[in-house]
């Protein structure tokens, strides 16, 4: 099977180059990239005027299966990923049962094989994500887990977190930390500030995240292990991570598109699709997060795609679950809010959505080198459309971006040499 992607502008994060060339795919692998390729018998994809980049990786999604299939399944979630331009996703373990053992990891891997894109399960740090005892990390690694996280359920016990870092470090794995001090965030539903005071909603202070970021940085520094800070949302977290990196601590970090796009003012009107954890922060925090992206403090853009049913969200703000969907709006938000706004160059944006997440997870993706899996995303920087949740492939429609015009959208998604999405339609 041969596929030729012709006339596109190739953004190569490994070489750090952007140049016009053709990419030739044979039997699911990248054969070569360059001009004047002999392509007899190949299917041709005309990518002129478009950006050809390694397949995007979203290292933070919730696919909800097993256990919460009304919200999403691995099938629908991977279709949403394909429509959003992602060729690989890493899914969090807060399923039911929790993905805290080799059997559940194997189940997710098996379901993932039937999905539209590559699925990499993340195992729980502690049994049941209860924060009490370590889960069997070695078993999970063998079953295919690529990282460990108790996402959504922060490991409050510092001693246990220290052991988790030591043990994961021994296995050569990264621990992804949801940084939230539950004592500081207790009962909170949005960012603590003027808007929460005005709305009478209980606030989550920035310190709830920052004390945990500081703690995990210190633990990573002491143990020499790798820690990845999930969904950074505050200026203080960005500063702590920047300082830690300067000291040589093995810390990486990600930000979600909603945290570099929206402020807590989006909560005015009590739209429950704005209820996320960590919450939408102040304008100062948004500026700091953007600065952190620009100067390299924040390595990765990940969506924290968290689908919920309409019934779950169509309630009082206090009662609604945290989370918004993100897979199908991510590229548009990155291009509209960061690239077009001059915060990131196209190359920087691509690095944060391909090479960097691949490196954090230690997966052989994020490259267009010959011999690599032919996972490719084609982005049309001129394509624009308003966000229409009715067209989402995800079961989740919970997005505050409804109607927002985004420019710069994924045009094609190719997984293992197979075109799974083209022209915004899943094949």
């Amino acid at each position, binding site marked *: 099977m041969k596929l030729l992607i012709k006339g596109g502008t190739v953004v190569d994060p490994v070489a750090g180059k952007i140049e016009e060339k053709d990419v030739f795919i044979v039997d699911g692998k990248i054969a070569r990239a360059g001009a004047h390729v002999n392509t007899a018998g190949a299917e041709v994809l005309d990518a002129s005027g478009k950006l050809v980049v390694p397949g995007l990786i979203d290292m933070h999604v919730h696919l909800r299966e097993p256990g919460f299939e009304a919200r999403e399944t691995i099938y629908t979630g991977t279709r949403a990923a394909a429509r959003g331009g992602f060729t690989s996703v890493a899914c969090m373990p807060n399923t039911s049962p929790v993905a805290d053992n080799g059997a559940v990891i194997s189940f997710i891997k098996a379901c993932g094989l039937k999905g539209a894109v590559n699925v990499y399960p993340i195992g729980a740090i502690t049994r049941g994500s209860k924060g009490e005892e370590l889960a069997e990390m070695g078993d999970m690694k063998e079953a295919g887990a690529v990282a460990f996280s108790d996402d959504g359920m922060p490991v409050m016990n510092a001693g246990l977190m220290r052991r988790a870092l030591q043990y994961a470090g021994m296995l050569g794995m990264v621990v992804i930390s949801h940084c939230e001090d539950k004592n500081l965030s207790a009962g909170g539903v949005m960012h603590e*500030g*003027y808007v929460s*005071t005005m709305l*009478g*909603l*209980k606030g989550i202070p920035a310190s709830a995240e920052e004390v945990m970021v500081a703690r995990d940085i210190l633990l990573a520094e002491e143990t020499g292990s790798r820690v990845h800070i999930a969904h950074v949302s505050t200026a203080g977290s960005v500063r702590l991570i920047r300082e830690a990196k300067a000291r040589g601590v093995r810390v990486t970090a990600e930000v979600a598109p909603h945290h570099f796009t929206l402020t807590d003012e989006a909560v005015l009107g*009590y739209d429950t699709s704005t209820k996320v954890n960590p919450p939408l922060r102040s304008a100062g925090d948004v500026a700091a997060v953007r600065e952190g992206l620009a100067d390299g403090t924040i390595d990765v853009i990940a969506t924290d795609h968290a689908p919920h049913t309409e019934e779950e969200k169509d309630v009082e*703000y206090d*009662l609604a679950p945290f989370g918004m969907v993100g897979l199908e709006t991510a590229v548009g938000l990155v291009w509209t809010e960061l690239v077009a706004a001059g915060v990131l160059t196209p190359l920087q944006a691509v690095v944060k959505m391909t090479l960097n997440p691949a490196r954090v997870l230690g997966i052989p993706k994020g490259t267009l080198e010959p011999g690599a899996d032919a996972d490719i995303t084609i982005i049309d920087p001129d394509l624009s459309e308003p966000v229409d949740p009715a067209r989402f492939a995800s079961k989740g429609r919970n997005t505050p971006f409804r109607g927002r015009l985004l420019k710069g959208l994924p045009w094609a998604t190719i997984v293992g040499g197979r075109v799974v999405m083209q022209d915004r339609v899943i094949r």
Partner: protein
Amino acid sequence: MGLIGKDLIGLRDMPAERIKLILDTAVPMKEIIRRQIKKVPTLRGRTVVTVFYEASTRTRTSFELAAKYLSADTVTIAAAASSVSKGESLKDTARTIAAMGADAVVLRHPMAGAAELLARTVDAAVINAGDGAHEHPSQALLDLFTVREKKGRLEGLKVAIIGDIMHSRVARSDIWGFTRMGAEVRLAGPATLLPPGLEKMGARVCSSVEEALMDADVVIVLRIQLERQQQGLFPGLREYARLFGINRERLRLAAPGAVVMHPGPMNRGIEISPEVADGLQSAINEQVNNGVAVRMALLYLLTGGGCRK
């Protein structure tokens, strides 16, 4: 659409002229209450539904009396706060209300934003009778009415609000209402019960009760809930009474003839001493009486103002 819009959710966005219209309308309503036969046919044939997810005899009775004095039919939907956690959705309640053909709904709910959610769902006029820690506009309007009646004006007055600002919907509505009408609002209470951003709302946060009381024309004392101490938000009621309780000595710091108010129910001896609560400067009983007049004005303006669709 009534003369003051479809709903009354809060005072945050209410223009001064509209507040004045409500207060002015409450004046003749108060006349009606003073009559021997307290009933006029203004809202005959209209239905007012009260939905209280939180116990509040005072506010519910006030609204029901207001509706009855205007000859509206009233219905109460029994909704316990516990039903919220049991999964009975506000949307289901909204469907019930729509089926009843209500003209106005008075909603008390333990969660902020509930009134706004209901207002988006039903055609009837929604009156927020307190939603979580968000707003309690009819209480603030009766506070404004009472002060205007006592002082003859609102503009230029110094208003001190003392106590648990963080959890008080009354404080929020009062801040919007008094500042919108040209008064200066000062706030004081335990630092742990003062949320961020109050200055941005237009109020001055004082470092002590004494500072807030100095030359104040109006002193609004808020109820302190025992539950807050159990949550560890302040160390104890005895200390609270000593540091923040409004007693006769403290009240002397206020301007002569300052009006003392309390949204009730009071913890006598904790946030307010009995001699202040029952003293000459207290307008607490008048607040209750004025509450009915203001709520009559609201029901009239929202449902019977003559130009409802």
